[in-house]
């Protein structure tokens, strides 16, 4: 069924083709007959065809000549290129290389911030053009001039807490850039500047003064941030103190205890000396609130003792009884002053031992670690020495004041005793007798 329909469909074009061919042949035959009949028309057509042919020939020869000339010119140009091409290609290559190097080298330079533009990349330039050379030279000159310029501009700056806000920035040539009081660092992308953490205080002060136009000197980091990074790594005083570890805390704690004891005792001594001064101004009314008054009161109770030597012994006893309270705390302060440097040394030695043990275990791969360990170990010695100095001062102050007070009590008591004895109505002869027996000088 379907095959028969196919055959039918194929037979149709066949019949049409044949019909068309027959029609075309019939047309040609008709034209030939026509031409043969009309000789003049034939001649004219031939003439026309000849003229056209001649025209085409002329155009052909003309074009040939032109092609010849062009070929000649091409050969000439090729010869010239052969002559000069090597030099120019070398120039282009070196220009492209230099502009690339310059772009790479200045990528993290401060000149990229509000500065002259970089020269274009020339890696894909085919032929050296004059403007390439001119643009490169111009941008080099502009960059060079820019390194000698101080520029003030507004730019978004990331603060230490990451907050980006527009700040007024000063860029000094290719050296440095800063806001009022902070050195700046180039961000990862070219847009964001960020402040350098832990800019040292004196640097910040000088930058702020320069920023405000008050001073003409400024501080910058010639190593492009390395020194600043090292400074930021350097531990602060508090961190150093914590490096001392347990021994450091013990040393400082002992020092604090010693100083507290010394302070309390010194306050007590000051109170005593004030009371004694009051007592000295008025020796008639004896008070119980100071050593001198107490000694004299006890002496007053013993007044009737006829033998001066016994009186003196009693008096000495009374003075001796006052001494411990005046010299309280001194042994402790002295002990702590002596112990603090020793403890510090102990901490240093143990720290060194730990460091060197670590080296024996892990090998001497890193001298930096060793240096860091040693510098940490030395901190306790520093703490011990620093603790010992004020303790020594405190001890000397305590000892001096207590000795003076004791001497005062002793002297005043002896003087009072002597005057008392001299005022005795029946005293002198009996006393002179006793003194004659003991004329030796002290």
């Amino acid at each position: 069924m379907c095959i028969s329909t196919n055959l039918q469909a194929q037979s149709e074009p066949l019949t049409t083709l044949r019909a068309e061919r027959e029609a075309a042949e019939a047309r040609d035959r008709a034209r030939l007959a026509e031409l043969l009949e009309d000789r003049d028309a034939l001649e004219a057509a031939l003439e026309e065809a000849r003229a056209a042919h001649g025209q085409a020939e002329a155009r052909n020869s003309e074009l040939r000549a032109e092609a010849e000339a062009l070929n000649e010119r091409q050969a000439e140009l090729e010869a010239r290129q052969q002559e000069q091409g090597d030099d120019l290609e070398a120039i282009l290559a070196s220009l492209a290389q230099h502009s690339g190097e310059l772009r790479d080298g200045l990528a993290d330079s401060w000149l990229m911030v509000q500065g002259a533009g970089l020269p274009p990349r020339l890696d894909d330039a085919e032929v050296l053009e004059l403007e390439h050379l001119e643009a490169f030279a111009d941008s080099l000159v502009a960059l060079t001039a820019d390194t000698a310029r101080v520029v003030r501009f507004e730019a978004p700056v990331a603060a230490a807490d990451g907050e980006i806000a527009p700040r007024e920035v000063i860029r000094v040539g290719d050296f440095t850039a800063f806001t009022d009081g902070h050195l700046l660092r180039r961000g990862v992308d070219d847009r964001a500047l960020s402040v350098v953490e832990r800019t040292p205080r004196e640097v910040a002060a000088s930058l702020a003064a320069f920023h405000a136009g008050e001073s003409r000197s400024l501080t910058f980091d010639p190593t492009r941030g390395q020194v600043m990074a090292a400074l930021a790594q350097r531990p602060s005083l508090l961190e150093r103190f914590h490096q001392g570890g347990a021994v450091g805390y013990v040393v400082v704690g002992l020092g604090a205890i010693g100083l507290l004891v010394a302070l309390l005792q010194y306050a007590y001594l000051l109170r005593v000396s004030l009371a004694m001064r009051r007592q000295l101004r008025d020796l008639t009314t004896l008070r119980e609130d100071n050593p001198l008054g107490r000694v004299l009161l006890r002496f007053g109770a013993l007044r009737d003792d006829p033998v001066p030597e016994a009186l003196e012994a009693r008096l000495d006893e009374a003075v001796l009884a006052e001494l411990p309270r005046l010299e309280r705390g001194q042994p402790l302060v002295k002990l702590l002053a002596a112990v603090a440097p020793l403890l510090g040394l102990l901490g240093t030695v143990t720290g060194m031992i730990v460091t060197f043990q670590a080296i024996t275990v892990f090998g001497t791969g890193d001298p930096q670690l060793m240096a860091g360990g040693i510098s940490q170990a030395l901190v306790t010695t520093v703490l011990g020495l620093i603790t010992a100095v004020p303790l020594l001062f405190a001890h000397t102050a305590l000892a001096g004041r207590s000795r003076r007070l004791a001497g005062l009590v002793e002297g005043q008591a002896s003087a009072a005793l002597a005057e008392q004895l001299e005022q005795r109505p029946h005293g002198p002869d009996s006393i002179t007798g006793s003194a004659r027996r003991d004329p030796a000088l002290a």
Partner: protein
Amino acid sequence: MGPTASPGVPAVIPLWLEPLQRLVEAGGSVLVVIALVAMLLFSLALERVWYFRITYRRARRALIARWMARQDHLSWSALTLREAWARELIGRLRRPLPWLRLLVALCPLLGLLGTVTGMIAVFDSLAMTDTSQARAMADGVARATLPTLTGMAVAVVGLLFTSRLEQIIRREDQRLHDRLARAVEDTDA
């Protein structure tokens, strides 16, 4: 720290202070403290000498005169009184000596402190830089020993001063008693 580019006039240091400035640069701030301690120490010692020469002698003369003015030179009470007077005078002469001794004891401590802080700085810089520069380290250690040297030197000289002062005062104590006794003998004779 970057150098301070200052177009202004640089600070002019007098020529005779230059060695001092170099010393401070070499030894750090602890050296300045040691220098201050040394100044204090020697000015105190000189003050004592001056005091002994002038104020003390006047006071001693006044004391002998007061002693001579008394009627009674022999009783126990008189001797006690004399003893008390002499002790007070000598005590006044001796009062700053503990402070002198403290300053002398402080010098080696401060020297050691300067050395240790210098060492810490050396080792810190070693820990920070990537290269182990033995030469820089040796230089730093050599510098760090300077405060100890200074402290020791000051302590030795201060020790000489203080021991000499002690000796003078002890001798003076004796001499005062002798004079007081002799004054009485001369009047009695």
